[in-house]
């Protein structure tokens, strides 16, 4: 991901959402909510309120930058890798599913690795426009922006090169680990090892 792309994506697109959100907040009834709460509340079960677009975009872009790191990619380790293998079969299957979902989106959207709270397993899903798994109550673990502005300068229309490079060189498995650890406070992913007295 080129410097130019990050400069414009973060400095202009993301920033514009932040500024517009702040403008909404001057008069919004949701002032005082945490950002996550605001995204869920303003999604309003599918009839989004005016603040949804900007609040969700701010949240998702923060999440996106933190889903990457310099010299990212390669493989996750330990518990994260085990969970991925458990829920996708193999790490390659996960990558294939993630890529397929990313390329299946009609129009602007995002692709997510997220934790399903009720089923207690990881899954991949694409979303439209500014929607994220927050709106349906699940826990995002990786978010990749599939809007054209995210990749066009670097890859033109070659979306699969963009997604492959993200998975192979950018995704931060360290962030994933931290997010999974936090998620385990809300979702019981395994049986506890209770020592026999």
């Amino acid at each position, binding site marked *: 991901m080129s410097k130019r792309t990050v400069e414009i994506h973060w400095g202009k697109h993301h920033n514009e959402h932040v500024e517009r959100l702040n403008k909404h907040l001057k008069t919004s009834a949701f002032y005082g909510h945490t950002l996550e709460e605001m995204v869920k509340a303003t999604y309003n079960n599918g009839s989004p309120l005016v603040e949804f677009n900007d609040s969700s975009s701010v949240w998702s872009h923060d999440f996106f930058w933190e889903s990457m790191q310099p010299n990212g990619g390669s493989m996750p380790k330990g518990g994260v890798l085990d969970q991925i293998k458990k829920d996708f079969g193999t790490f390659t299957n996960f990558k294939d599913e993630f890529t397929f979902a990313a390329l299946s989106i009609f*129009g602007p959207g995002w692709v997510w690795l997220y934790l399903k709270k009720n089923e207690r397993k990881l899954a991949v899903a694409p979303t439209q426009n500014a929607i994220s798994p927050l709106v349906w109550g699940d826990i995002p673990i990786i978010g990749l922006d599939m809007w054209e502005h995210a990749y066009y300068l670097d890859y033109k*229309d070659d979306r699969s090169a963009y997604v492959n490079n993200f998975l192979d060189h950018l995704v931060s498995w360290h962030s994933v680990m931290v997010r999974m650890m936090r998620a385990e406070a809300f979702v019981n992913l395994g049986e506890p090892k209770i020592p026999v007295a």
Partner: protein
Amino acid sequence: MALLRSIAISSNKTITLAPSARALTTTTLPPLPYSYDALEPVISGEIMMLHHQKHHQTYVTNYNSALELLHTAMDKGDVSAVVGLQSAVKFNGGGHINHSIFWKNLRPVNAGGGEPPHKKLGWQIDTDFGSFNALISKMNAEGAALQGSGWVWLAFDKELKRLKVETTANQDPLVTKGATLVPLLGIDVWEHAYYLQYKNVKLEYLKNIWKVINWEYAGEVYEKEAQ
């Protein structure tokens, strides 16, 4: 695109399709009426080439595939497959329709691009918007405000006999906003239409594109429908 089939209604609850001679006509990418760099400096040759050869071509290719799958599903009477394919047909077919109109909406400056409309369309614009500039401002404002991807249209309502500015999301064609709406002009506000040149400054793209708009084409469509 002609689909020949006979429909036999066997009871008031089921409709049986008797597959007779069914012609599968594939769509093809229409050629541009001008060279890729003919709209510079308003729209770069690079954008025009990618837009036509990659994006529009992809819609055409994927529409043809979706159509083939649709025919197979229909022949088998697979209702859920037919329904499942609708979004692919709408998206790719819409993309083809919209872009085919778009290439005709643009014209190089030295061939009359940007020349404001005169005669009947000009008067209709003054009647419905107050002035030509008011129309431009409105279209720019709606295009700029559009979140995500989509199109901004100058439409003629055949029934109400008046012009209207409309927007559609993604590749939804104008008719999805009203069956009586006829597209006179469509401006693509997907990021791929301007990003390489204008980056995030969509409004700059919108302000500039008027320099290469083909009002003659819009006028022809209008006069044909307004009779």
